[in-house]
């Protein structure tokens, strides 16, 4: 159960120090370390990344959500197609989903041109892919559970009963 608690805290903020997590969970620091090691070793925790609000950065960053439809045959399954696509560094996320299309793919690049080219030259030609629909991200309001709104000032009085 403590592993679960540690996991929740890491998801909240992967930069909490082991000491902080220990304080919050009432565990010893080495227990926290062991729990994190275990989570990493078993592949529950796959990595740690920053949650970025690209709109705040001068550099342009273009992101797109791409819907993919595929046709499977006897030799090719979803896993085969996913392997082909996932190895591209431009692909940041790839999920098989239920509904009107098969894969949900997140793509990132430095320009619209670059992202478009990637889709038309690398993705669309994959023989099993029958259709792609690209949605460019215009504004992001929330990523990984973190809201990007700026109105976060604490408007409470500095003292209250």
């Amino acid at each position, binding site marked *: 159960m403590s592993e679960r608690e540690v996991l929740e805290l890491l998801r909240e903020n992967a930069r909490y120090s082991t000491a*902080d997590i220990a304080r*919050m*969970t009432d565990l010893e620091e080495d227990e926290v370390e062991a729990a994190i090691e275990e989570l990493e070793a078993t592949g529950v925790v796959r990595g740690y990344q920053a949650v970025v609000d690209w709109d705040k950065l001068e550099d342009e960053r273009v992101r797109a959500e791409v819907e993919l439809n595929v046709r499977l045959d006897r030799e090719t399954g979803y896993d085969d197609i996913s392997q082909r696509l996932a190895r591209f560094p431009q692909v940041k996320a790839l999920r098989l989903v239920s509904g009107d299309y098969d894969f949900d793919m997140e793509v990132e690049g430095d320009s619209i041109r670059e992202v478009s080219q990637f889709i038309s030259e690398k993705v669309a030609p994959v023989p099993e892919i029958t259709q792609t629909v690209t949605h460019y991200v215009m504004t992001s309001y929330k990523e990984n559970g973190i809201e990007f709104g700026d109105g976060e000032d604490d408007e*409470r009085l*500095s003292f209250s*009963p």
Partner: protein
Amino acid sequence: MTFELSDRVQTVPPSGIRRFFEIAEERDDVISLGVGEPDFATPWAARDAAITSLEQGKTSYTANRGRRDLREAIADYVADRFDLGYDPDEEIIVTAGASEAVDLAFRSFVDPGDTVAIAQPSYISYEPGVIFAGGEVLPVPTDEEDDFRLTVEGLEEAGADEADMLVLCYPNNPTGAIMPAEDLEPIAEFAREHDLTVLSDEIYAELTYDGEHTSIASFEGMRERTIVFNGFSKAHAMTGLRLGYALGPADAIAAMNKIHQYTMLSAPTTAQYAALEALDSCENDVREMVAQYDRRRQFVLSRFREIGMDVFEAKGAFYCFPEVPEGFTAEEFAEEVLREQGVAVVPGDVFGAGGDGHLRISYATGLEDLREALARIEAFVDDHA
């Protein structure tokens, strides 16, 4: 012309934290641990219910005692959570915050000259409330050695056997102390033996981190002499919606309703819709908030220990109550740490007997801010060691 103030109003001193306000206003980098209200917004479903009720134009008064469906929901909730059985028609009144309910109780049951024993340190509004009602306050100090729990010896020492009424607040603001069932039992016996009416403010009941909350009204023979207060401000993060309630025997609630119907008419209607939804569907939100408070509690307690300040193991509400290091009074510490480090805390003195030499630290603040505030307190303590 000047107004001639009533003696009752004149007797009550201005709030002990006003001065700190002014200092806090002077700078813009203050992290406040002085706030006695959640830093979470009201759960979305409850806000949505309030909005929908407005869209539908539900903006008239409700029944004086509050909407019937809300009273039913409250009855179910307290039965389920705290094993308390109250009849929604006669034994529950919905008020504008627990504050109003507490005030109604003082005005309904206190006659001039009556003595109201208040277990202290405790929430700052009881004492003025008693004075406004014409009563006299008998402080019953609790101390750290007893984990800030009320004891029969404490009651006897203070002379509470002669009192007419006893006010309890557990989980406690400001100490974070709780009263487990085994500690409440002798208090209940004392109240029965000396025929005390008990006002039990249980607004922090959901915020109990070690074990379950027990209400004193659940003990044999206590229901008929107890008024229980609760509300939506704390656990449901609804302070600004102003909604609370009181539970008690029919005749007592009828008396409170008499004052309520002439002064308030009914509690805010929009808030009643929010509250109904809060009880209906926000249990998980409450659970998640409580889990967050608990993490912060452990964080803060452990940081105070590292800093070398003695701190009482708070088990309820969202406060902890560390001891001020030697060489300071609580007032001095609070003022200087605010001036030098921009951390706002409340000196324990303002909460009455037994609070001096302590600080009330609220952890109803995000972890990042708590971490920074505690680093600043640590720097302050190091500077003055």
